[in-house]
């Protein structure tokens, strides 16, 4: 299997491997996949409650090189983003950045799922829903209309 240079770089030098305290109210955790499917991804974000900005992100992944690279890249992108902007990260962006071949697209889908689950977990801890992230989107659209 020929991996792109970026995949190999993330695989050999993964960014932000680690574990955060799941119970911390400022931490959101997303675990997706299953061992028998060959991929399990765990992505965690730490949010500054004052600013709503993701200050830190960590991952651990059981999976192929592309799955490791997809989650490693996701943590890089998450840092410094607002929750709203984090939810805008699309699997297709990951596919493009890492030049993933068609058979590895599911790795990027899994990474997007992991981001969403982490956001959801954080929001739930604060009594909010994913929809709440995009309330203002509609206002903007309404305003434009």
């Amino acid at each position: 299997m020929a991996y792109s240079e970026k995949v190999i770089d993330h695989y050999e030098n993964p960014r932000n491997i680690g574990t955060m305290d799941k119970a911390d109210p400022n931490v959101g955790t997303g675990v997706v996949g299953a061992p028998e499917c060959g991929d399990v991804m765990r992505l965690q974000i730490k949010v500054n409650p004052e600013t709503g900005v993701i200050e830190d992100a960590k991952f651990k992944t059981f999976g192929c090189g592309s799955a490791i690279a997809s989650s490693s890249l996701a943590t890089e992108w998450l840092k410094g983003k607002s929750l709203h902007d984090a939810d805008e990260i699309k699997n297709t962006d990951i596919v493009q950045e890492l030049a993933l071949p068609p058979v590895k697209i599911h790795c990027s889908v899994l990474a997007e799922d992991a981001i969403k689950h982490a956001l959801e977990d954080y929001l739930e801890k604060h009594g909010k829903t994913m929809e709440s992230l995009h309330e203002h989107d509609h206002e903007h659209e309404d305003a434009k209309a």
Partner: protein
Amino acid sequence: MSLKLPIYLDHNATTPMDPRVLDAMLPYFTEKFGNSASRNHQYGWDAEEGVDYAREQVGNLIGCTSKEIVWTSGSTESNNLAIKGVADMYGKKGNHIITAVHEHKATLDPVKRLQKQGFDVTWLEPNSDGIITAEAVEGALRDDTILVTIMWANNELGTINEIPEIGKMLKEKHSEKDKPILHTDATQWVGKMPTDVERDGVDLLSASAHKMYGPKGVGFLYVRRRRPRVRLTPIIDGGGHERGMRSGTLNVTGIVGMGKACEIAGQEMDSEQGRLLKMRTRLEEGITSKLEMAVINGHPTKRLPGTTNISFPYVEGESLMMAIKEIAVSSGSACTSASLEPSYVLKALGLGDEIAHSSIRFGMGRFTTDEEIDYTIEKVVKNVQHLLDMSPLWEMVQEGIDLDSIEWGAH
């Protein structure tokens, strides 16, 4: 001395040719190029002499006469000839065949074809140690059993089946006339371990040259001539070569190479066995002492000296292969690793799909050095540790979480 990378540890897939074998073959390409079936001139006689000498070299290695060797293109053909040849020749006598689920595809597929044609097949399952015992075969015997086909050593695990015990049991339970024929695919065995078809009660035996430092594309089927005389229906008809059992101009260069390979294997077997066993132990201990989760598959001792199959739970198979890309090894079966199906051999031992995927076969050989083994240990330990550090599953296991208790999401 610097190491040549990648390090070749896939000797169960194929071996490099021994330079001594190449030297023996060379004259038969250019000078003694005759057709061994040409009876009228020196060229033919020279070629025939080379072929006959090779028959003796093989005979010396496995304890048979030179008339009992049928040259083929390799073990796949030998297995096909043995299995289909017996079924066709003895089909009127009986309808039952015994084999095992973790045989090589070159046995499974011919047997499956016979099953489709109406033969009854018992598929023996190994214990978790991977071994087929004489007791298991005995339990499956029927009055209409015509063929027992069990490999001598397994290609993925290196585990050794009880072939001499099976041979003995069959002889004890049957008269010479009624005895089911015992075929063994000895591709991984011959040349590495002492073989005596008389002592071991084997009637048909398959082997390939390229697994024992000979050329690819040549092998043989040993066919017992007496007590009992085994007859086979050929699958290739033509000029009636090889006593009618396998027509076609003989691959003289390949056959000469196989003969030489057998001669060298016989001479060096004792010292090689000891050397490879030491090397295997060094590799296994080097890895398992530093990676506590690593598991050696198959029977702890009843295995070929140079072969080991190790599972690395909690790391994923493809990333594992990436982690040790400087070591040329096989994950799953060499013949099926083009597909992402987990190895059916490891599944037969009761391993789950994900662990089967994370398993590696290390196959050491005649030219493997201790230095290469030490390099392999270092790379495997370092890079598997890197993957473990990244693995959420390993973290959970260390926290004492039972992974089976978790409801994983579907995807």
